[in-house]
């Protein structure tokens, strides 16, 4: 009897320990990012670091301005969202409302496969097909550009947008749509004026999830964006926050290395912001139903 109660207590503690592992990980990661990232920001000066337009980490007189990276990440993500959201949302509408069940069941695995393709494979295709194509179409000497990165990212965020939006559209109560149809609205009017507005917080969650994916993507972007610390323009080689870190990490030292951790910290802040937004949206959805 006694052994039994001891086992119970031990298991209780073990499960509790497992339960708090996730919290511990978040705390430790956040702590480490701050610990590794903050010193360089203050050594360089927060304003100089965040709003400096020149990055020359290995120059004799090094400059550490990451505004080009921040803007590239923001523009790149915005561009990918601009292209990915319409295609993704309409595909979700197709799967949820328009396609016959059999066709939808045939298309859905395609979306899942798209989600499963490793980012290096996207990078490879981008590098071998898209970059030469961009160079040829727009008459550039070099196709590695923000534009190529935007296209790759747009494809990569499609699955997140489609999956989450489709779930949201499926959850719209059929009464809403039936009422709209009964009032004489056409199927399309019903979809765009009733179903989509009713599912908007779920769709927004899908979009935010996609934004998070795009801003955090490193490898695929690394292979197509050219990795030059230019201020972003559509057809120049650019560096994202993610690639700024991964490009120099292997050979960095001293303040340069610390500055790379600071870049990661900035990226981390972006991601945390997006996470909070996502959480708020999903909670809103749960509360609304």
């Amino acid at each position, binding site marked *: 009897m006694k052994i*039994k109660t001891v086992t119970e207590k031990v298991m209780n503690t073990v499960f509790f320990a497992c339960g708090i592992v*996730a919290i511990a990980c978040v705390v430790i990661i956040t702590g480490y990012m701050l610990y590794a990232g903050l010193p360089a920001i203050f050594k360089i000066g927060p304003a100089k670091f965040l709003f400096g337009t020149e990055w020359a980490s290995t120059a004799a007189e090094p400059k550490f301005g990451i505004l080009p990276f921040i803007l590239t990440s923001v523009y790149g993500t915005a561009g990918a969202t601009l292209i990915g959201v319409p295609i993704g949302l309409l*595909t979700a509408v*197709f799967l949820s409302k328009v396609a016959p069940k059999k066709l939808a069941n045939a298309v859905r695995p*395609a979306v899942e496969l798209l989600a499963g393709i490793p980012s290096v494979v996207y990078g490879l295709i981008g590098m071998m097909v898209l970059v030469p194509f961009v160079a040829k179409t727009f008459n550039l000497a070099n196709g590695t550009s923000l534009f190529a990165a935007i296209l790759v990212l747009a494809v990569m965020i499609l699955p997140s947008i489609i999956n989450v939006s489709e779930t949201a559209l499926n959850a719209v109560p059929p009464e809403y749509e039936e009422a709209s149809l009964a009032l004489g609205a056409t199927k399309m009017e019903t979809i765009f004026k009733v179903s989509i507005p009713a599912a908007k917080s779920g769709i927004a969650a899908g979009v935010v999830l996609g934004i998070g994916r795009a801003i955090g993507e490193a*490898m695929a972007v690394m292979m197509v964006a050219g990795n030059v610390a230019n201020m972003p323009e559509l057809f120049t080689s650019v560096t994202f926050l993610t690639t700024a870190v991964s490009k120099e990490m292997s050979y960095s030292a001293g303040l340069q290395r610390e500055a790379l951790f600071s870049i990661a910290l900035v990226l981390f802040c972006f991601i945390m912001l997006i996470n909070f937004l996502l959480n708020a949206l999903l909670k809103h959805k749960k509360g609304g139903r």
Partner: protein
Amino acid sequence: MLQNDRSPRRRLRDNLLRGAICVAAATTVLLLVSLIGYIFMRGLPYISWELLSTSPSALRGTIGILPNILNTFYMILLALIIVLPLGIGAAVYLNEYATNRRFVAIIEFATETLAGIPSIIYGLFGMLFFCQFLGLQVSLRSGALTLVIMILPTIIRTTQESLKTVPESYREGALGLGATKWTMIRTIILPSSLDGIVTGCILAIGRIVGESAALIFTAGIGAVIAGNIFQAMSRSGGTLSVALYVYVFERGKFDVGFAIASILMLLVFGINLLAKFAKRRLSR
């Protein structure tokens, strides 16, 4: 009759919207088909027995990916061995033990946060924490530990989902017969949620196979076959995805890159099929 009431403009708009929807869906499918087609076209011809069964040799100038295949396999094995008890334990705690709802909400928020952190951040964190702070160096075990944090949310979520489907009457029955809570979990709850756990494993394997950014700085790019699995753990070792990146981006070996990409795609196919199969069993 209703049809006649519609003005031509309204009908035109309807058709345009329907057209846009179909075009979008067709774009998605076409993208996938052409991506896969292109990879296989460029990659399959270069998959040879020699490529699959040898190590790269600078002496003969040949490239083999056997070390990378083994590393991928070791990585999956090690990461799963560590993450499964943790993830299942956390899910059991959330579903069976926790009583404080606010605490549960905090854990779930932490889990979602982990799921949203990009792999490059995990890579940096793993490098700082596992490789340097804990002194594990750039090695398979550092990589695996980094992956553990990354796939923990997946395992927790899928396990939790299947725990929720275990009928309340099973629990009451077990407890009513005098079983203690741990006995009930061990003999009733966990066996009935096995399918969800398996689904979680399959999804996690998919993540591990495709991961590169988190592993480059933690597990490195080593391509030497170690004597046994324990030696391999403490050495640098690149998985297939990492090898693809290195061969293509740093060494310009595009054919090898496409060959590895084809293998990765075949793996992704297999993993997707398995996941579907497991899910179907889960819902039955």
